[in-house]
C-alpha cells in the first residue's frame, strides 16, 4: 500500500482538527455541564390533563427555595400554554414541557432554550436568559396545517 508523504501530513492536520473540535465539546460538557436536554422521563399523553404535574393549576412559573425558577408548560396545537411567561434575567430557569397531541419543538431565538416536545415524554431544559425584554417561544417542528401560528410570549424582566 502506498501513502504519499503529503497525504500523511494532511492526515495529521485532519486528526488535529478533529481532536480540537471534539476536545472542546468534551471540555464544555464536563466543566460547564453543558448537555442537550436529555431526561428520559415518560408520561401518559392521554391523561396528563387529569392529574399530576401538568394539570392546568400547576402550569406556569414557580420559584424554588434556592431562588431559581421552574416553568411548566404544555405544547399543544397551536400554542404554548400558559401563553405568557415572565422570568427574571440572569437567573437559573428550568423548563418542563410535554405534549398531549403530537410532536412539537420550542425555541427562543438567540438562546439555547430549545427542545423537542414529544408526546409520551417530558422535556426538561435548564437555561439562563441574559437579555431583558420581550421574546418569543416559536414552535419549530411541523405539527399540522396551523403550525405557523404556534408561538407564545416570553418576558425577561429585571432581577428582584
Amino acid at each position, binding site marked *: *500500500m*502506498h*501513502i*504519499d508523504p503529503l*497525504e500523511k501530513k*494532511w*492526515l495529521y492536520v*485532519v486528526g488535529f*482538527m*478533529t481532536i480540537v*473540535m*471534539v476536545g472542546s*465539546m468534551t471540555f*464544555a*460538557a464536563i466543566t460547564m455541564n*453543558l*448537555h*442537550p*436536554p*436529555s*431526561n*428520559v*422521563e*415518560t*408520561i*401518559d*399523553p*392521554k391523561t396528563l390533563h387529569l392529574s399530576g404535574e401538568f394539570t392546568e393549576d400547576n402550569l406556569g412559573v414557580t420559584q424554588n427555595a434556592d431562588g431559581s425558577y421552574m416553568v411548566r408548560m404544555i405544547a399543544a396545537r397551536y400554542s404554548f400554554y400558559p401563553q405568557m411567561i415572565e422570568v427574571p434575567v440572569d437567573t437559573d430557569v428550568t423548563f418542563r414541557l410535554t405534549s398531549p*397531541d*403530537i*410532536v412539537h*419543538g420550542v*425555541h427562543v*431565538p*438567540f*438562546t*439555547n432554550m*430549545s*427542545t*423537542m*416536545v*414529544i*408526546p*409520551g*415524554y*417530558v*422535556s*426538561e431544559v435548564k437555561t439562563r436568559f441574559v437579555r431583558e425584554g*420581550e421574546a*418569543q417561544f416559536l414552535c*419549530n*417542528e*411541523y*405539527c*399540522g*396545517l*396551523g*403550525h*405557523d401560528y404556534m*408561538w407564545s410570549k416570553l418576558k425577561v424582566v429585571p432581577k428582584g
Partner: protein
Amino acid sequence: MHDRSKSVALANLWVAFAAMFVAILLGLYQVMNRSGLFPEIESHELYFASVSTHGVLMGFVLTTFFIMGFGYYTATATLKRPLWNKGLAWIAFFVSLGGTVMAAIPLLTGKASVLYTFYPPLQAHPVFYIGATLLVVGSWIWCLEMIMSVVTWKRDNPGKVVPLAMFGTTANAIMWLWTSAGVGIEMIFQLIPWSLGLMDTVDPGLARTLFSWTLHAIVYFWLFPAYIAMYTILPKVAGGRLFSDEMGRIAFIMLLVISVPIGFHHLYMDPQQAAGFKFLHMLGTFAVAVPTLLTGFTVLASLEGAGRLRGGKGLFGWIAALDWKEPMVVAGMLALFMLIAGGWGGMINASYQMNSLVHNTQWVTGHFHLIFGGTTVIMYLAVAYHLWPKLTGRRLAMRGLAVIQLWLWAIGMLILTLPWHVLGLLGQPRRISSTPYDSPLVEQWDPHELAMIVGGAVLVFSTLLFVLNLLLSHLSKRVDSVSDDDWAVAVHPPLSLPKPLNGYALWNGIVAVWMVVAYGYPVLQFLILETHGSLPWGY
C-alpha cells in the same frame, strides 16, 4: 457495456430526473408562498402537501433511481460483463416505480402531508407508507444485484483488485442495507399496521429513534455516487490521474463503517434519549468528517495534477489551467466549493452544544440544500452528461450549454441557501409556510426572503436547461460511439491489495458491533421503560 443493462440504467435515470423536474417546480412555489409577497397564492394545505412531495421526490425518488441507474452502468462497465441477474434489475425498477406512484397519489391529494420524515402521531393514508416502503424494497433488490455482481466477479477473478468505482458502489449498497433497516422496521412494525388500524397507538419516541438510524446515513447513500464520480471519473476527464486509489478505498470503507451508528445528532434536542448516547454519537459524527476531508484532499490533488499537466504554473495557476469547458470539471470544482461551505455549517449542527442555537431553524434547511442540492445533485447532473452519450449512443446536444447550466445551478443554490443560513441565525424556524409572529424579528427576515425567490427561479431555469439537453440528445440522430473504458487511473495503480481493502467481510462485522453499542440499549429501553403510546392525529 451490455445493451440490456443500458436500457435499465437509462430507465432509472429518466425516472430520477423526471422526479427532480416536478420537485423543483414545487420548490419555486414554496419559496414564493413562504415569502409572504404573494398573498393570493398562500395556502397552508397546498404548501405542506407541496413540501411533503418535494421532500419525497428529491430525497427518495431522484436519489434512489439515480443511484440504481449509475450502479448498473458502473457494474457492467468496470467489471466488463453483464449484470448478475438482468431480470432482477427490471423487477427492482418496477417495484420502486410502483411504490413511487402509490406514494404520489396520497401526497398530491393532500392525504399525506406529514413531510418526508413522517412525524407520527401525525397519520397519513396507509397507501403512502406502503408506497414509500416499496420504493425502498426495490432499492434492496438493487443492493443484492450490486453485491452479487461483485461476489461472482471476485470468484472468477481470484486475487484481482476490484475496480475502485465498483468498490465504492458495493460499499454504498452494503451501507444502504444497514441504513434502511431502521426506517424499514419503523414502517413494518409501527406505521403501516398503525395506519391500517391494526394498532391503536404508536410510540413517537421509538419511531424517532428508528428514523434517526436511517436519517444520517441516508445522506451518505446520496453522496456516495458523487464521491465515486469525483474519484473515478473526474481525474481522467480533467486530463490527469487519480492521486491515490488506496485513499479512495479507505474513504469508502470509513463511510460504510461510520455513517450508520451516529444518527443521534438528529435527536440532540429529543427528550427520549439520554445524554451519554448522544455524546457517543457525537464522537462518531465528527469521525465521519474524516473521509470527507480525505476525499477533498485526494480529489483536489488529482485536479491540481491535471491542471499542471495542462501547463498551469504557481500556487494557484493550475486552477485557471483546468478545462473549464468540461461539464464534469466545472461540476467537480463547484461541488467541492459547496461541500466546504456546507460542511462547515454541518459541524455546527453536529456540535453537542451549539446545536441548540440552530436546531430546526432555517439554518438546517440551508445546510442540507447546500450539501445535497449543491454538492450531491450537481455531481448527478455532471454524471448524467458524462453517461448520456454512452447510454443513448447519441452525442450530447448542447455541450456549452451544459457548462452554463451547471454554473447556474451552483449560483442559484448559493443565492437560495446563504440567506437561509442567515434566517436560521435570526431565529426563523424551518418548515413554516408563513411568518405570522407578532415580533420585530419578522422585519429582519424580509430581505432574505426576497433573495430565496431569486435563487429558486434560477434553479428552475437551470433544471429546465438540463432536462431539455438530455431530451434533445436522446432524440437526436447524431450518433456517437464512446468507450466505456474511460475510468481514472491512479498515479500508482494497486496491483494487489490486502483483503480488507478489497472486500467488506471484516467491515461488516465492525458495523454490526458498533450498531449494537450505539442502538442496542436506546431501542431496547422502550421495552424497559413504562411508555405510553399516542393516538393518531390528522393535520
